[in-house]
């Protein structure tokens, strides 16, 4: 039987967790990391525990608890999730673990689906933890069991940093054996390790600094760091992670022979770096985002007094922002080594292309909620928002800010307390509310912010691929659990105006928003309607709507609403509805002429 499969990088990582005998896996969704837990949670048979936690700090601590009790644990998140989890991160480093722990933080160079493009390798350096930076999906899978081994050997948590092109890359992956050996779980009371009060923390810091250097030595022989010296060339390239495969292809396309050092496991091994530096006259360092590797290489050259020219980001040859690719690497190589430039000029399009930004789905309830919000709070209203599908409400003109998860309610408070006198109405999704919105609401109520908080409860964590959350009454693996009531939470946090409304019912929702706007103090409106995509997957199908051309006056009110299923026919000057209609019925309520009606089946 063939053991090669065409696999998504994240599925390969999930497989690596299984092969390595992971026992407790927790995480919070975030592109491009989500499919790791999606995959593990969907398995029919499991001999490990897996959960979607409510945020990354929580997920991190669940995994940390498991690891100090002796288990092999994994926590998954996107890069910005590590900011939320950075408090436990920085001290777990002193504490170390007993079993093994892998912190998967998926980076997103070029911000394909993110609000920034921070580099997790910086966190690894900061936290004094080893970091694995895979260059292919195969390597990502194979690295996981090895990372468990290393983490256990040094009793230190390890960071694993796939990037979008690994997590959402697909490749033929050769499967490996699944370990049957599982460490025994037994919490041992070791106060000097598990209680990080000053006395213990002071003693652990030098110890951890030493462990970090011991790991550096261990990684000298790691299969993930490979040195190939080219006897006939005085040129060299040092490259990390996914950039290393682009760099190799670029060298081949440039027809250049050079020594090559691939670094996919950090801290950077000194012996391999000094070998290549001593061998070459000129070295180019190619890595995505921050000059983590480059800085280390420069420090090592100086420390060992090696006379070699080092080039990379500080010369502006390799960009410090955006993802790399073969073309960028070819440019960098040609410039660094003074080759004739071969890169192809961009094709000049003389036809103008329409923009195609992502939009809310046809019938998405967020669109209806924004429509009414905007109607009630007006064009001068202030609309701080948050992160989720509803951020796409920017097209409805009802999203004025997006900073990070949870920042809608808190920034609204700040805008209010600064003295802004226009009404403030913010929006936050259900999952985001559970993540870091609750403490913001508590703060707003406590400090008497006169704002309206709209919790857009579409009964799921939609943006990241429809993961369950505490409001839904089921866990990651589909078990029934308590369905936490958002309105009860709001009441418990001290809010006195808390009302629910179905955003598809425009009139009723308008009434709720008006009363919320006029209320003195923090008011909460919960717009509740399941995500149409999730609803369709569960088999619910509604009748479509259509436009009666006789009644349509061509006023475009429905088209301005912005549903992708409504179109305007320039020839007939009438609106029409295409087959993407999901039957929410909102445009029919907007049409003043009764021209839009349900199609009877």
């Amino acid at each position, binding site marked *: 039987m063939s053991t090669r499969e065409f696999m998504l990088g994240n599925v390969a990582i999930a497989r690596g967790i299984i092969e390595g005998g992971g026992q407790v896996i927790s995480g919070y969704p975030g592109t491009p990391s989500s499919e790791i837990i999606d995959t593990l949670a969907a398995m029919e048979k499991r001999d490990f525990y897996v959960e979607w936690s409510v945020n990354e700090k929580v997920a991190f601590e669940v995994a940390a608890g498991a690891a100090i009790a002796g288990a092999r644990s994994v926590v998954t998140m996107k890069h910005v999730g590590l900011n939320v989890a950075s408090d436990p991160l920085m001290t777990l480093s002193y504490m170390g673990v007993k079993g093994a722990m892998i912190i998967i933080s998926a980076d997103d160079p070029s911000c394909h689906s993110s609000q920034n493009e921070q580099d997790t390798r910086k966190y690894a350096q900061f936290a004094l933890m080893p970091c694995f930076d895979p260059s292919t999906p195969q390597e990502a899978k194979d690295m996981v069991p090895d990372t468990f081994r290393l983490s256990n050997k040094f009793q230190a948590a390890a960071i694993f940093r796939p990037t979008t092109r690994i997590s959402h890359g697909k490749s033929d992956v050769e499967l490996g054996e699944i370990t049957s050996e599982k460490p025994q779980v037994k919490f041992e009371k070791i106060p000097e390790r598990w209680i990080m009060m000053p006395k213990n923390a002071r003693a652990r810091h030098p110890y951890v600094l030493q462990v970090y250097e011991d790991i550096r030595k261990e990684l000298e022989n790691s299969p993930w760091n490979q040195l190939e010296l080219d006897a006939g060339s005085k040129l060299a390239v040092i490259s990390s992670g996914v950039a290393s495969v682009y760099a190799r292809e670029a060298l081949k396309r440039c027809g250049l022979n050079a020594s090559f050092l691939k670094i996919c496991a950090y801290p950077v091994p000194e012996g391999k770096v000094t070998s290549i530096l001593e061998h070459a006259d000129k070295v180019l360092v190619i890595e995505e985002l921050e000059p983590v590797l480059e800085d280390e290489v420069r420090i090592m050259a100086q420390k060992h007094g090696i006379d070699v020219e080092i080039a990379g980001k500080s010369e502006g040859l390799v960009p410090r922002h955006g993802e790399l690719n073969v073309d960028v690497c070819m440019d960098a190589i040609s410039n660094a080594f003074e080759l004739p430039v071969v890169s192809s000029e961009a094709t000049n399009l003389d036809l103008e292309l329409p923009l195609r930004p992502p939009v809310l789905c046809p019938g998405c309830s967020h669109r209806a909620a924004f429509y009414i919000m905007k109607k009630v709070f007006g064009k001068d209203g202030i609309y701080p928002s948050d992160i989720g599908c509803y951020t796409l409400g920017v097209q409805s003109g009802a999203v004025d800010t997006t900073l990070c998860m949870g920042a809608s309610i808190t920034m609204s408070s700040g805008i209010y307390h600064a003295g802004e006198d226009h009404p403030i109405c913010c929006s936050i999704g259900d999952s985001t509310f559970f993540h870091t919105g609750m403490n913001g609401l508590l703060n707003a109520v406590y400090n008497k912010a006169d704002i309206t908080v709209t919790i857009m409860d579409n009964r799921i964590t939609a943006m990241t691929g429809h993961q369950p959350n505490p409001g839904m009454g089921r866990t990651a693996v589909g078990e029934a659990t308590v369905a936490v009531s958002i309105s009860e939470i709001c009441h418990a946090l001290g809010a006195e105006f808390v009302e629910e409304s179905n955003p598809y019912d425009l009139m009723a929702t308008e009434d709720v928003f008006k009363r919320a706007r006029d209320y003195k103090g923090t008011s909460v409106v919960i717009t509740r309607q399941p995500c149409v995509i999730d609803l369709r997957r569960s088999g619910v199908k509604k009748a479509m709507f259509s436009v009666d051309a006789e009644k349509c006056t061509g006023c475009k009110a429905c088209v301005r609403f912005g549903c992708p299923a409504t179109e*305007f026919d320039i020839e007939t000057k009438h609106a029409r509805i295409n087959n993407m209609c999901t039957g929410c019925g909102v445009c029919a309520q907007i049409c003043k002429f009764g021209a839009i009606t349900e199609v009877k089946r």
Partner: protein
Amino acid sequence: MSSAGISLFDLVIAGVGGQGTILASDIIGKTAVREGLPVMAAETHGMAQRGGSVVNHLRVGCEFGSLIPLKSADALLALEPSEALRYIEYLSDDGIVLVNTEPVLPVTVTSGLSSYPDVGEIIDYLEQRFTVKAFNAVKLAKEAGHVQSMNTVMVGAVSKYLPLSKDVLIECIRQSVPKKTVDINIKAFELGRLQA
């Protein structure tokens, strides 16, 4: 072929979130693995899947990275005409474009913020520069039994040029689509293949 010695066949698949570009690359990728070839692919997941412009790179017989350099793709499979133009810079000078002529109008167009170029002009533009196979894949999908099989029509069209066997492709379609739609998708594949 500008990726000679690096990749056997470089394919760019362009479309709109929701059109099924991922399934299209999955079918081809799985077939390649079945045939013992290494494959590297890059997909658009996440935010752009909500009706945005999406692009997948698929490199059959390649052991480097998944991203195809500019002007290196052997074929561009466009599930939507304006998306063919958006990613045309990846196609090598002697590459082929397979394009569905049925547009999906972005909201920027339906709401009157921008205009959509004439489909005839798009095809002319492409034909002046490359070998082009243009056809209405939505019509063919309906003929096969369901609009949603449009992506399989397109896989059928590109299949003639791939270094992969038709039978294995069909076998992989069988395994990749919902059971109820197997026959529709195989028919869609055949109708697409006739266009090439």
